[in-house]
């Protein structure tokens, strides 16, 4: 009933302490969590996904479906496979998916209710009523079904590394090492990747191999590893798992930098290797599969090769007297090892007929007087949270045995995951009863058991033949075995149950709690295609992707459908091969490194003056400035807006995109790109312009400055600049390569200040005493260049607020000095800084649109009443033809209007609907007629009531009409009047005086 210790070179004598669910245990350096727990006779390690059944350690590797734990000492890392995670001193581990404790789990009631949780249960049960899914079912299911809890307060430092190589060898077992040996000191650049911390694979997991080239397996591994290590062209990556095989031989592998060590939070704990290779050699072996029988999930049931691996690799014999159940020849080595350690299996159950069983097996069993059942199977096992009794069926008789462990071998599957990810074609092999690689799609070679070759003797020839495409010497492998070379197996997927009780379960997917009965039910309900069946039952959809069970389910399904397995086919194996942490994928692209933050040259001043920032694209822009600690955003915006129209305000507009357009054909190019006509425009004047898509819809706007016919500067919206530049570039390269035009992004070459308000002229005269700012000398929409101190500046008369305004462009180096100079001059005129929210309010009062607010990709300039911007006499420009399409010229398109509340105290909210009803019915039975939506809504401090801009069907002809606007949380709608969208200064007197 207890584990014993065996000498093992991979485990050091150094003891470490770990805690599991609060209790402290002794382990050794080199142990995995699983081997440490088995060493301490812990069999129960978790609760299952759906039924909360007690589960133990089933395997000894990446294929583990059950033993998933949470590592508290590593920022709560959940769903860690106990079978591969190595321990260190002070490691803190808890079990998952149980409450209040692992032994007494409340959720286990699901097991009693299990007859109702059959295949498709979620789809059938949680259908209605409306709203129940979101508010009741989903939270409930999420709480009771699931895995670990997400990590907390953790900032990963994981990194990415790139490789370009000639050959990648995946797996450093016998085949991988032999293949790598061929490349020693050749011209090929080779990467040898091993998932474990030791090389050797099968050689260190069992004693099947006696000698290689006269050396013991360990001597051969050491010799080979040293040769490879000293060969400059080969790099070895240990603790590294290849998770993904993409197109054009692109591989992704995850390296655990702190395997068996406590994580140092200041260092990168994971490295994601992105590998581009010319050739890939897959030699990552095989995975043992289980057999379905009654209660095949009880803690104590373990795969036979895993049991064997615990002995050889970790020096733990989990149980002295296990029962061995097999349908193939591979368990002989386990039997021999147990005998050599003085252990005596309780029984040996072989499904094969006595004549087909190896004579050596029969001899050992007879000599050691071990109970032997041939042509027999396990009917099931029973026990409370562990295996206690095992029922064996031989013919018509049943035998009950007492043992706490059952080692199962259902045969081996070549590990074809990566091969199928690479789009290779697989084929059913009757000799090994599994799929094996057939035709590769890329330059992929499979070796050893991955290729379906289970014969050690044939390995040497296979390697020399398959690697003959490389210019390397032949490798020689003279292998002597402790076991017969021939692999023999008899087909068995599920054993017969004694009774058909609803509570007796034989599992086909241990991770997702899918039983063989679920498969049958799904087929009865018509899900007879394997891909449908998989999704309906969630079979092999767990994080283990059914590594030990998916072939079994295909076989069982094919039997039910009375088809060949090759006709049923496989489901698609998708990357990643095993779960990988999001932290590894993100690498260093987290927080501020995920998307760069762009700051203007005035940023430090904004910080000092209590600016609250808004993200505009990557830019940090002041949203509003807090005048006092307690000032709310609404108060600040109302204050800023009123102050500006009374005195003056200044906005940091440096974020506006600026593109320089130069060249012989600049004028022709601009005429094609924008709606406006630029030919008659005088030099040193500017114009508000729009850019459309080919579909006629507005894409961006901005002010175009014309320096000459060969030189323009276009401003764009802050977030639209990269796209506008890319679009211009695209047309120049692809449609009009004959145009001689050069584009340059100059956004960051200038700090830009927009200063506006009735007192602006006086402030400007104070700052720049030598410049004539009179209306005649400096009219609206003109610009001039000046010398200013040791630099040059450009001043343009333009405004986005509707007040008298100027825009100043200065190299950013001098930006902050000038900004402060303007403030010291503006002090006596009550100049204020203002942010984007005030800018939006002021422009709405003036009826100016904002791209992305009034427009949404379905709005034309005609919809906005901006017909004056369209150069109708131009032969062509982007989007022109679309403006006369029948749909674009419909009269009832949504058009821009202004909204004014009839009751001046009402608030018009942004995003609300415009309807004809003054009140919404209590119960809405018929759709309510919808006229449009409010695109902008503000309380105007200058008009002292709420205002709105809206897009309304046929709005142009609705001036003076009354409608209603819906309001949040109210059934009574707000009565509004349709008005001219320009609320302030419709004659543009303030702009032009």
């Amino acid at each position, binding site marked *: 009933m207890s584990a014993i210790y065996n000498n093992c070179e991979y485990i050091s004598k150094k003891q470490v302490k770990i805690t599991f669910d609060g209790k402290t245990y002794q382990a050794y350096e080199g142990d995995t969590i699983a081997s440490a727990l088995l060493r301490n006779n812990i069999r129960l390690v978790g609760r299952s996904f759906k039924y909360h059944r007690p589960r133990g350690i089933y395997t000894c590797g990446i294929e583990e479906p059950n033993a998933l734990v949470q590592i508290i000492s590593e920022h709560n890392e959940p769903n860690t496979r106990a079978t591969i995670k190595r321990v260190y001193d002070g490691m803190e581990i808890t079990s998952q998916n149980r409450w209040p404790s692992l032994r007494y789990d409340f959720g286990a009631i699901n097991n009693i209710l299990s007859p109702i949780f059959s295949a498709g249960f979620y789809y059938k049960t949680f259908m209605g009523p409306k709203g129940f899914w979101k508010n009741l079912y989903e939270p409930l299911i999420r709480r009771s079904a699931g895995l670990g809890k997400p990590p907390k307060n953790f900032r990963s430092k994981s990194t990415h590394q790139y490789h370009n190589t000639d050959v990648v060898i995946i797996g450093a077992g016998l085949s991988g090492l032999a293949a790598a040996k061929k490349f020693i000191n050749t011209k090929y650049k080779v990467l040898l990747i091993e998932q474990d911390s030791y090389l050797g694979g099968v050689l260190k997991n069992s004693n099947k191999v006696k000698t290689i080239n006269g050396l013991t397996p360990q001597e051969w591994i050491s010799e080979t590893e040293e040769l490879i290590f000293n060969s400059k062209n080969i790099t070895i990556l240990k603790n590294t798992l290849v998770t993904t095989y993409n*197109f054009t031989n692109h591989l992704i592998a995850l390296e655990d930098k702190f395997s068996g060590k406590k994580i140092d939070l200041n260092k990168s704990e994971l490295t994601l290797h992105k590998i581009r290779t010319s050739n890939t050699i897959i030699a990552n072996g095989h995975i043992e599969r289980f057999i379905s029988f009654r209660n095949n999930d009880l803690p104590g049931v373990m795969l036979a090769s895993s049991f064997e691996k615990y002995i050889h690799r970790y020096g733990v014999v989990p149980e002295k007297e296990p029962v061995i159940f097999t349908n193939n020849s591979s368990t002989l080595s386990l039997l021999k090892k147990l005998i050599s350690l003085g252990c005596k299996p309780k029984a040996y159950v072989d499904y094969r007929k006595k004549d087909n069983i190896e004579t050596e097996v029969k001899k050992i069993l007879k000599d050691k007087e071990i109970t032997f059942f041939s042509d027999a199977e396990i009917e099931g096992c029973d026990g409370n949270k562990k295996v206690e009794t095992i029922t064996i069926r031989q013919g018509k008789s049943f035998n009950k045995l007492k043992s706490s462990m059952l080692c199962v071998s259902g045969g081996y599957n070549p590990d074809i995951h990566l091969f199928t990810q690479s789009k290779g074609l697989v084929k059913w092999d009757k000799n090994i009863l599994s799929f094996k690689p057939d035709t590769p799609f890329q330059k992929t070679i499979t070796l050893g058991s991955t290729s379906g070759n289970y014969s050690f003797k044939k390995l040497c020839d296979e390697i020399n033949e398959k690697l003959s495409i490389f210019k390397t010497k032949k490798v020689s492998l003279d292998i002597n075995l402790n076991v017969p070379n021939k692999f023999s197996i008899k087909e068995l997927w599920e054993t017969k149950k004694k009774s058909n009780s609803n509570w007796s379960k034989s599992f086909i997917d241990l991770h997702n709690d899918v039983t063989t009965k679920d498969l049958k039910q799904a087929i009865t309900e018509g899900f007879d295609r394997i891909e449908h069946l998989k999704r309906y039952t969630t079979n092999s959809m767990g994080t283990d992707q059914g590594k030990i069970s998916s072939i079994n389910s295909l076989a069982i399904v094919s039997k039910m459908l009375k088809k060949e397995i090759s*006709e049923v086919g496989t489901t698609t194996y998708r990357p990643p091969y095993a779960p990988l942490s999001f932290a590894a994928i993100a690498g260093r692209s987290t927080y501020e490194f995920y998307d760069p933050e762009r700051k203007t040259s005035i940023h430090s001043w904004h910080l000092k003056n209590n600016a609250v920032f808004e993200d505009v694209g990557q830019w940090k822009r002041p949203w509003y400035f807090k005048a006092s600690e307690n000032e709310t955003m609404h108060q600040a915006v109302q204050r800023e807006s009123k102050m500006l129209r009374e005195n003056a305000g200044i906005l940091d507009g440096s974020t506006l995109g600026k593109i320089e357009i130069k060249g012989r054909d600049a004028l022709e190019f601009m005429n094609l790109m924008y709606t406006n006509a630029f030919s008659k425009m005088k030099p040193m004047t500017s114009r508000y312009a729009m850019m459309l898509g080919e579909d006629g819809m507005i894409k961006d706007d901005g002010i175009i400055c014309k320096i000459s016919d060969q030189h323009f500067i276009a401003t764009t919206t802050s977030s639209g600049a990269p796209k506008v530049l890319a679009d211009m570039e695209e047309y120049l390269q692809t449609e009009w390569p004959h145009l001689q035009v050069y584009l340059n992004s100059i956004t960051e070459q200038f700090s830009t200040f927009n200063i506006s308000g009735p007192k602006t002229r006086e402030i400007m005269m104070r700052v720049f005493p030598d410049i004539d700012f009179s209306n005649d000398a400096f009219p609206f929409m003109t610009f001039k260049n000046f010398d200013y101190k040791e630099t040059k500046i450009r001043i343009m008369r333009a405004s986005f607020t509707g007040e008298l305004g100027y825009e100043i462009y200065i190299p950013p180096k001098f930006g902050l000095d000038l900004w402060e100079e303007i403030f010291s001059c503006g002090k006596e005129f009550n100049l204020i800084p203002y942010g984007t929210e005030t800018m939006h309010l002021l422009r709405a009062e003036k009826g100016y649109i904002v791209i992305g607010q009034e427009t949404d990709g379905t709005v034309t300039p005609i919809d906005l009443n901006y017909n004056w911007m369209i150069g109708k006499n131009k032969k062509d420009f982007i989007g022109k033809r679309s403006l006369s399409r029948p749909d674009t010229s419909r009269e009832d398109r949504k058009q821009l209007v202004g909204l004014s509340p009839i009751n001046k105290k009402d608030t018009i909210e942004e995003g609300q609907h415009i309807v004809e009803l003054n009140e919404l019915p209590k119960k809405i039975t018929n759709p309510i007629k919808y006229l449009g939506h409010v695109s902008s809504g503000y309380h105007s401090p200058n008009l002292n009531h709420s205002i709105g801009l809206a897009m309304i069907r046929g709005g142009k002809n609705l001036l003076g009409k009354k409608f209603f606007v819906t309001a949040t949380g109210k059934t009574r709608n707000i009565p509004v009047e349709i008005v001219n969208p320009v609320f302030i200064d419709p004659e543009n007197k303030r702009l032009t005086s």
Partner: protein
Amino acid sequence: MILIKCPYCGERDQSEFANGGEAHVIRPKNPESLSDKDWGEYVFYRNNPKGIFYERWVHTHGCKKWFNAVRNTSTDQILKVYKVNEKRPDLSEFQNTLKSPSGEPSVGSGNFAVKK
């Protein structure tokens, strides 16, 4: 993640590029003379075949140049790249290339990863 050969820079990772949809769709010289239907076809309609496809790419995080490529959308193999001003390669050049991965039929999709 495929490798793409930029005709100006050489082989680079796919992440450096952006796809620009079907190639050889020329913007009409006189849009005003086109019927609504013809203009609509130019603006809104593109081919999306399973198999050989002539498409545009731009080396966004590189030389920023546009170029054309012939790609088999079924195998994701890029069969040829050429500059914008170069002649469209004839379909017959690609007759002997792989039609689909894993023996899938050239029309439709499905699970055909198993050789019968």
